[in-house]
């Protein structure tokens, strides 16, 4: 029991393997529900490829579990601004995600100028900028500039929301 517990410790990758397996299973279940009309012109049918793909995912999931339990680990990706010496900083990521979700919820009602400005401001704040006045000015300027840029330059009407008639 203790060996299993110690083995599981620090193996978040198993969660990813579970995700892979779940996606694979979803693909397989979905494929099994497809009706296959007999057809001379399509001997392969709509099921074959989903079965192959789902199978591939499930097999990968199983092999990944085996690999992780035996001590294999995926190599996290580096980059110019990436410092892998400290662990995932959820206090940055969660507010970022919150700003992103807020934008999804209000973009159609409040309009891009408001939701986009909130998205940018929220993200900048989450990433650690604390120059409130400058951040607000930049957020509003960016969302206004993109709103008019898309409208005048590309002919794409982003939603104006609450500000319909004002903009």
């Amino acid at each position, binding site marked *: 029991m203790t060996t299993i517990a110690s083995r599981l410790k620090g193996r978040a*990758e198993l969660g*990813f393997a579970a995700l*892979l397996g779940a*996606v*694979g299973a979803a*693909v397989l279940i979905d494929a099994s529900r*497809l009706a*296959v009309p007999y*057809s001379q*012109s399509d*001997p392969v049918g*709509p099921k074959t490829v989903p079965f192959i*793909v*789902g199978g591939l*995912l499930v097999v*990968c*999931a199983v*092999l*990944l579990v*085996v*690999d992780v339990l*035996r001590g*294999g*680990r*995926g*190599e*996290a*990706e*580096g*980059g*110019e*601004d*990436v*410092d892998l010496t*400290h662990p*995932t*900083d959820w206090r*940055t*990521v969660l507010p*970022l995600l919150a700003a*992103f*979700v807020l934008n*999804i919820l209000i*973009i159609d009602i409040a309009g891009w100028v408001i939701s*986009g400005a909130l998205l*940018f401001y929220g*993200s*900048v704040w*989450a*990433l*650690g*900028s604390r120059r409130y006045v400058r951040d607000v000015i930049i957020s509003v300027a*960016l969302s206004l500039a*993109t709103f008019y840029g898309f409208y005048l*330059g*590309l*002919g*794409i*009407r*982003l939603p104006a929301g609450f500000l319909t008639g004002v903009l």
Partner: protein
Amino acid sequence: MDTLNLLMQGFATAATPMNLLYAFLGVLLGTAVGVLPGIGPAMAVALLLPLTYGLEPTSAFIMFAGIYYGGMYGGSTTSILLNTPGESATVITAIEGHRMAKAGRAAQALATAAIGSFVAGTIGTALLVAFAPPVVDFAVSLGPSSYLAIMVLAFIAVTAILGSSKLRGFASLGLGLAIGLVGIDPVTGQQRLVFGQPLLADGLDVIVVAVAIFAVGEALWIAAHLRRNPLSTIPVGRPWMGKQDWKRSWKPWLRGTAYGFPFGALPAGGAEVPTFLSYVTEKRLSKHKEEFGHGAIEGVAGPEAANNASAAGTLTPMLALGLPTNATAAVMLAAFTQYGIQPGPLLFDNEPDLVWALIASLFIGNTLLLLINLPLAPLWAKLLQIPRPYLYAGILFFATLGAYAVNLQAFDLAILLVLGLLGFAMRRFGLPILPLVIGLILGPRAEGQLRKALQLSGGDVAGLWSEPIAIGVYIAVAALLALPLVLALVRRRRPQAAAALAAAEGPTAAAAAVAEEPATDRAAARDRAAATDQAAAPDQAAAPDRAAAPAPEERQPHHKDSHSHEKESL
């Protein structure tokens, strides 16, 4: 002669003032976005796609041409002025380039990179002009079974050759294929993986997926590990080269081009191997061996040329076969399909104006790149100092905007978030991004060819290898898969012979050769990590049990120096 006429017509289309303006804008934006740390060429193209929505296809592609070369060039500026390279293709440029910059020769390093990129890009594009028509002639004679075989080769090549873990590569490929399945089956009209959600019935927009994986995933990943003390950049004046620098640069430029183009044109060739090879070659041939590791100009000139020639090489299979071989080409291909244009041999017949205008604008864009970048280099250096909160908030902001502008529906943003989190998890757990993108884009087309092939054979499985080309390609696939197995077997029996054999292999040769050199600094140490990876890779595939618990000396550098060399030009 005919080709030349077509090319001239292409120039006539591309050289109108309006189109020149688009090319100029493309180069400028591509370079600016490419210079920004954290943004590679693929993300640059994905983020800039919305700007081309309102344009007609020809102008849009002329702008793409500029963005493509601009983004490629921008990356090398970053790696010369900031030590840590963002993308694998410029890892080598960073080694000597950054040392030159530190020694006060940043201007020369940037100059040899810019002029080398221009030389290599021009020669590479000329080779594209020469090779694309014959490849097209060859490709139109291919049936569905051969196409399927070539796509299978592309899947296996990007998955099994690149990257340190084949298992994670295949997992990534499977995810990409699964995403590609979503939507209505084109043959029977049945919904697959739609889960009753009408907005999924048309399938996931490839642009939304690309922006999610490249931009949102990357921004979240960097945010989670943001360096709190940003790297110092080296200020630079206008790039220039002295007579001596020219003398030492022109041969490496040409040799780098010779390495880069063929590797770029191969599926899974990429830019890493030719830049390695070029670096090693220049080191061997140089009269100033002692300067290597302290900022040798040849070590910047050769790899930079190889990098850009490979970028041009990549366009050959992409335009002629519709086969993307790196992430940037895959995103460009997605953009093509957005316009209802299917790259492939028929493109040259159906849309000759468009193709040749695109090729002509590659020449134009390349020239503009040189003209713009030499005077603007000090400005680019300033871009590197942009406060990081603004940079990454900006990436999220523009990613959201771009994905939303495709269909103007908030649902796409939910998809963006979900797939962005997937991209984040993939970076966290070391899954390469490229197989996912290739699977997503080629998957549906491979399925189409599979069904066509078996339809022609009346359901007989032998229809899959009815053409000699198909058989040849499958043999190549088998060889690719078996090679590491054979190597491992030989190695287990005779360690000495295996080392020699491994050295004869292309990618491993470069890596191994770099590894032989004494480690003088951190950069060299990083190379060795990459080399050890590559050398270790065959073992891992062949013997899963050994792969799971590899020898400590094989694994260690890998973890410490997490510069994944397989990370495909993001």
